[in-house]
């Protein structure tokens, strides 16, 4: 009997409801972390505001143009801290503890389980702020994205998320090879700052690399530019190709690494 999309859909929502129940169980916790997340977001935005007290452009981007990018960055951050960082943390933790066996013996795709098992809802406010900031900045700019631009921007965002997930999975899969590396899941959170600014601040080779083979520079810049009405087909092509390569590499590396999985002796 093959698993249908319907089965995966059911499992996905079952996990979401489990975490909703857990959030409700620990609601004080939820409020506290929602406040902390919001605080960080406002702190970040505040920093950009201070920068623009002393300049009119950063990397050639005006204040409101940058806020579009910052809004998108905040949205990405909300997803990273709600979903990816937890999934990857439990993934590496389970590899080290031997509990990964629980996942491997289930008749459902392991990578699907890894990514969908966990999430929290603490970053919902952060996501809302991100969306709000993006829309507000576009209003300030008087920019009205066409339906096509909107679709392309969403496509860019989707590709960005897939690229991030694939790369992060690769990095975390190193847990199969390294005896102990608690902060392996800190690598991506540090890298994400690269796309908290427009790609144009980076120069020469670094700029080239970050807008092509390692498209960290494109994650927020591309959808922001698209929303501003500047379509760059080359950038899109690079993001698409890099994402495909990342996904294929991640799948192969993961499969290869499972073979190394020894679990804990007892």
């Amino acid at each position, binding site marked *: 009997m093959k698993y249908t999309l319907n089965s995966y859909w059911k499992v996905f929502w079952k996990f979401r409801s489990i975490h909703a129940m857990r959030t409700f169980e620990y609601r004080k916790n939820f409020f506290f972390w929602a406040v902390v997340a919001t605080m960080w977001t406002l*702190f970040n935005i505040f920093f950009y505001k201070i920068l623009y007290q*002393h300049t009119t452009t950063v*990397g050639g981007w005006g204040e409101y143009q940058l806020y579009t990018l910052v809004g998108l960055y905040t949205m990405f951050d909300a997803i990273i801290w709600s979903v990816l960082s937890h999934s990857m943390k439990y993934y590496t933790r389970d590899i080290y503890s031997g509990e990964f066996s629980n996942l491997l013996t289930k008749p459902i795709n392991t990578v699907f389980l890894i990514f969908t098992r966990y999430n929290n809802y603490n970053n919902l406010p952060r996501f809302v702020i991100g969306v709000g900031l993006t829309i507000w900045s576009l209003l300030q700019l008087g920019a009205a994205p066409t339906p096509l631009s909107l679709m392309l921007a969403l496509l860019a965002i989707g590709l960005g998320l897939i690229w991030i997930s694939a790369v992060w999975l690769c990095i975390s899969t190193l847990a199969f090879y390294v005896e*102990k590396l608690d902060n392996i899941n800190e690598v991506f959170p*540090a890298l994400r700052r690269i796309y908290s600014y427009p790609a*144009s601040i980076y120069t020469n080779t670094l700029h080239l690399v970050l807008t092509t083979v390692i498209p960290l520079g494109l994650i927020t810049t591309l959808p922001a530019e698209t929303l501003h009405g500047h379509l760059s087909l080359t950038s899109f092509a690079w993001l698409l190709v890099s994402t495909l390569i990342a996904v294929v590499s991640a799948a192969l590396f993961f499969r290869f690494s499972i073979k190394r999985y020894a679990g804990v002796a007892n």
Partner: protein
Amino acid sequence: MKKYLYRIKLSIMISFWHRSELLLWLFLDAIPIVIMFFVWQSIYSTKEMIESISLPEMLQYYLLVLVITNITGSHFESFRVEQIRMGKIDFFLLKPFGFLAEIFWTHIGGKLLYLVLALPFLAALIYLLSQYFPVSMINAPLAVWLVFGALLLFGFLVEYLLGLIIVLLGFWFEGSEGLEHFKWISISLFSGAMIPIALLPEWLQSASYALPLQYMYGVPINILLDGAVSSDISLLPPVFFICFLILLVTLLWRKAVHTYASSGG
């Protein structure tokens, strides 16, 4: 004395076992600073000076922020609060060493090893960056360096004591390690770590100049960049602040030992 040396040795060994993590932290912590370099370089493309700070000085400022963060930073809060929550500190309460001493010596041992790895790394990074960016040189007499060293010690103690307070609050509050975030944001905002205090909005500047946190980053960096200790800098506020924090820690610890129920969980 032997007891303390042994504790340090043990914690160095444990830290060494986690050396790959330490190396990774070094690399990861450097990324935001490198990004800042690019940001400021792009901002200074349209002007020479911002609040009388030139680009080379601004870049040197952020390098010093990185160095100070590496020397003074503390990350033990989450781990220790979890130990309390799980009721795992019985062991330390029974031994003549005590929980606070355990935290202190582990922190020192870990920090020493970290610096052995960090200093060469930072030197290499600074060299590399100065090849691509116009970083200003530091030209300061020994006396200024000594004051800088004293303020580094101050920064180290503040981070450590604040961390300790957060850990001790873990005896009463679940999730007190979340207070780490408030600590970081406060220090970033008021100490000059995020941006030179002179660039902050007026109201925030006044607050920063009134608080002792500026002695962690803003003041030490400025005396090195200026090459001199200005007359309006006094070491009294930092000393008082440390005394205040030590008092707070002592009070909290006494209360905590009373409250602690070894069932934990």
